[in-house]
């Protein structure tokens, strides 16, 4: 039996959707969360330390934290690290910018234009099936063992994440928004600039973020297989000389790179995409 007063049949929340992290957390909660997180890290380091100190962990396999710190200090103080870093960062940045630039342009071309999709997408889908590391020997043959082969490897590693996410982002814009735009008589150029591009920006950011870590990976690979400079070279030399403290120190440098990259992209998204639900920083 129907109730005499049934006000809402299809009711929906009338409250604005609250973003998951936007200031909803009290600072005490944040402090506790950070404390717990850092405690876990400290615990792992403490375990490592005691294992080294008690002699149950051989210094040849894994040097103690103190040795690794000393190696880090040594690398920094004698300038080896700074020199290697500048060379490696240069390779990574050049490769990343060129690769992501190509990926972005091709992705927009295929994502915005039918003709672009027909021309670009099929070959891109074929090429992306190739693991980029497999190209290294070929690149050495083609471009020699100098800078070119390394930068080319990074380029070929970074094109696809950006291409796929840009193309996918542009193609997955809500059809209803496009229909709205048509009903309001927007020109194709305005649909692209005002609707498709901003709406696919989060997806483009995913691509850039992903390709920046792929650039790092390609850097490691290319510098370890053939190099006479850079942090990968430093790592390989240390490894050949059985200096595992330096090896670990350089692995930590790579890890710091990764963390910094992640922070960079979080910040970039925070400022470039203010219209999205807030992201935890």
């Amino acid at each position, binding site marked *: 039996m129907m109730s005499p007063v049934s006000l809402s049949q299809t*009711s929906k*929340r009338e409250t*604005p959707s609250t973003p998951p992290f936007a200031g909803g957390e009290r600072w005490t909660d944040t402090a506790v969360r950070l404390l717990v997180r850092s405690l876990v890290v400290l615990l792992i380091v403490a375990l490592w330390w005691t294992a080294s100190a008690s002699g149950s962990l051989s210094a040849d396999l894994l040097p103690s934290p103190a040795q690794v710190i000393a190696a880090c200090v040594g690398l920094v103080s004698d300038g080896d690290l700074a020199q290697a870093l500048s060379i490696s960062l240069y390779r990574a940045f050049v490769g990343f910018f060129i690769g992501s630039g190509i990926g972005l342009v091709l992705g927009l071309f295929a994502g915005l234009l039918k003709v672009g999709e027909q021309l670009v997408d099929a070959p891109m889908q074929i090429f992306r099936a190739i693991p980029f590391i497999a190209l290294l020997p070929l690149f050495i043959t083609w471009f020699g063992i100098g800078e070119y082969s390394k930068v080319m490897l990074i380029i070929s590693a970074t094109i696809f994440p950006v291409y796929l996410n840009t193309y996918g982002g542009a193609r997955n814009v809500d059809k209803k928004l496009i229909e*709205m735009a048509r009903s309001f008589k927007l020109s194709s150029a305005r649909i692209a600039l*005002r*609707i498709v591009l901003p709406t696919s920006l989060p997806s483009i950011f995913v691509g850039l973020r992903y390709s920046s870590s792929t650039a790092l990976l390609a850097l490691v690979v290319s510098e370890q297989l053939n190099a006479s400079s850079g942090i990968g070279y430093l790592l390989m030399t240390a490894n050949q000389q059985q200096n595992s403290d330096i090896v670990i120190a350089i692995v930590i440098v790579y890890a710091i790179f990764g963390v910094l990259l992640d922070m960079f992209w979080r910040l970039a998204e925070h400022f470039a995409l203010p*219209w999205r*639900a807030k992201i935890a920083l």
Partner: protein
Amino acid sequence: MNTVRLQAGSDAIGPRALAPRVALQGVSKIYNGRAVLDGIDLDLAPGEFLAVLGPSGTGKTTLLRLLAGLERVDGGTVGVPKVHSVVFQEPRLVPGQRVWKNVVVSDRWSAASRERALSALREVGLQDKAQSWPKDLSGGEAQRVALARALVHEPELLLLDEPFAALDALTRIKMHALVDELWRAHLPTVVLVTHDIDEALLLADRVIVLREGKVQRDIALSEPRPRDRSSAVLGRLRTGLLRDLGVDQGQHTGVAQQVTV
């Protein structure tokens, strides 16, 4: 069946004096061999407020999409005014653009268009949300922005496709008052597609019921506005419309009852 094919949205009325602003002649639309609309004739006078009711799948939304130029007819002609706009069931705001830019999404963005957006937002009571992002709006606010976007160019024809169906009951009542007010201020011709009989009775001058691709009922309403949803005249009409829509109301005649078909 009339086989003249005209692109929906073009002005098919021609130079006749006193021509109705919206004219459908023998309009048919066929999906998968089934005529969703089967020879619809419909004339709307300028400023007329039409509500379209009908069971699900009877082509109410198709009719509206033909008027909006989003679909083409399979037969017959559609004539609509040049300046027309749509409010969809969902707000369809661009999430990456601020509210005011959403309102003037089809204009060149400038100080002048911003002023236009602000005055349209003022009319729907959201002038202080001009700089907000769509994600920070409630469902009702977002739909009011969609209404401002539809009204900003002073359309001669305003097409409303179940615009309040997703809102809660109290917000919906407020939206009804707002639409009534805006319609009286601007007097566009309105076509409102709805499931909600009360909404149709409160707002429209004329209610049609679509059934099996045809106009089954065409009722003129002359109740003064703003209307009282508990008035006896509306109650009788409601009972009649429910019968047309195939709902047997039985002994339930509670005046406050809102029935959604």
